[in-house]
């Protein structure tokens, strides 16, 4: 565990990582387990009486089947928001958080390049993000019988969870990239939170304004499940844009991290 900076970072953050994985997967599974109580005529009738704009804002437009329900509640809301919080803070901690705590300096005074150290830590974050996505995937597979999640194949769940992983990687790379470039954890989290708020609004509110429908195309929440990988499989465009932006943010962050003064 102490061999290199990748395993060391995992080891140092083991408690918070396990807590996050269980919380996100647990909350997601809990919402999924409510599906049978939603799946009845009375509930459907109640939702039909809601204004369309409200349903659109809540992503509840297609809630009459398990995939639509999971898109609205699990992937469109609780798991998405928790993933944003986890990924942003874990990404920002990797460099900026460590630097502000004053503990990065000692490591960088050792014979390791900044880029190598940063990449090892980002890789550790990616592994945890993958573990979280897989944990929720396993929970939902186990639940799919008891919770009557009919019509969603294992492959569809896999596709959705690949999107979820890329979504986590994207927000992780915002926290990581801005943090590595500036050394300021608060700024990194602030930028990421701004993107999340904009993305959430663009996906549910702004896109309802006439002439602004296109704006949802710029929302990470749209890329996550706007094209419903649960029903349609992997959406190559959405997956690529999340992966591409993550690579770009990490690369730019590393380039600036290499050039700047550390721990001033």
């Amino acid at each position, binding site marked *: 565990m102490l061999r290199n900076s990748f395993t060391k970072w995992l080891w*140092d953050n083991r408690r918070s990582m396990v807590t996050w994985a269980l919380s996100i997967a647990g909350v997601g599974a809990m919402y999924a387990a409510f599906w049978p109580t939603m799946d009845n005529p009375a509930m459907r009738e109640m939702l039909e009486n809601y204004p369309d704009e409200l349903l659109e804002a809540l992503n509840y437009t297609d809630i009459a089947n398990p995939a639509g329900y999971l898109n609205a509640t699990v992937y469109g809301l609780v798991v998405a928001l928790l993933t944003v919080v986890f990924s942003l803070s874990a990404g920002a901690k990797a460099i900026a958080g460590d630097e502000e705590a*004053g503990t990065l*300096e000692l490591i*960088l*005074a*050792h014979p*390791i390049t900044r880029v190598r150290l940063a990449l090892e830590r980002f890789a550790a974050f990616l592994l945890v993000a993958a573990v979280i996505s897989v944990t929720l995937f396993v929970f939902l597979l186990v639940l799919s019988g008891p919770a009557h999640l009919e019509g969603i194949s294992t492959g569809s769940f896999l596709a959705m969870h690949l999107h979820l992983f890329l979504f986590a990687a994207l927000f992780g790379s915002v926290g990581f990239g801005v943090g590595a470039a500036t050394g300021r954890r608060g700024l990194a989290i602030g930028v990421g939170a701004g993107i999340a708020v904009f993305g959430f609004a663009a996906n549910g509110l702004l896109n309802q304004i006439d002439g602004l429908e296109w704006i949802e195309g710029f929302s990470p929440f749209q890329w996550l499940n706007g094209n419903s990988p649960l029903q349609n499989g992997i959406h190559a465009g959405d997956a690529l844009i999340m992966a591409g932006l993550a690579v770009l943010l990490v690369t730019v962050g590393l380039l600036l991290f290499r050039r700047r003064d550390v721990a*001033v």
Partner: protein
Amino acid sequence: MPEIAIATVGLIKDYGRTRGLDGLDLEVRTGEVYGFLGPNGAGKTTTIRLLLDLIRPTSGSVRVLGLEPREDGIQIRRRVGYLAGDFLVDGRQTARELLTYLANLRGGAGADRIDELAQRLDLDLTRKMRTLSRGNRQKVGVIQAFMHDPELMVLDEPTSGLDPFLQHEFSTMIRDAASEGRTVFMSSHVMSEVQRSADRVGIIREGRLSTVEGVDDLRQRARRHIEIVFDSPVEPDGFSSIPGVSDLTIDGTVLRCRLDGRADRLVKAAARHGIVTISAEEPDLEELFFDYYERQGAGGDAS
């Protein structure tokens, strides 16, 4: 191995609009113990961070062990042991975990010496870092700076927080390292911290090196408090005019004064009387150090 372990020429470092270093010319010879003295904020830590490539110079040149930090930072850091002014680490790990990891960053170099050094400094390696006192944390810092037998040690205020026993042990470690031919560059804001172990001291003020002296020379030139007890009362005449003598008081048979520089004339003057005892305090270099500060400050060194 180059003769010069650390060389900076015209080194300037700006932080935004404030100037951290203002043309520092520093030369540390291979194998010497160099005390880098200056008040807080004079640029000591800035200099040290430049040596390790943690920060980059605005202009001027730096060479460490003949290499350039910007180009060969990895090589330099492999051959250097560094102890920061405040040794900060994640508190949730044990001292052994931390030291093992740090050794692994060096490809395992020094891992086999952790136990020996911990024993020497009386440190319990199984304790979590956050449960250690400041002094014990500092011991961990000393171990990681020494364990891989670096050619050059860069120590930023190394004995702050150590008790007198450990300060002594630490001085011994420094002298041992020097006798093995290693170079030690240690900063401090108090002379007493370095006068025990340093061969030379450089005094930095407002980002520039103002003086470099051998510690032995300093000691010879330092002001001493002298007390001479005669067997019969003496008169001040014949003493007050001696160069270097100041604050002269004569109280019956007891003469007290301060002496700058050589004692020759004073002793010869005293020898004309019957002497019971002579005592001279070990020179307080701290005082000398303050003299430098004051002289420089009054001299208008803004240039």
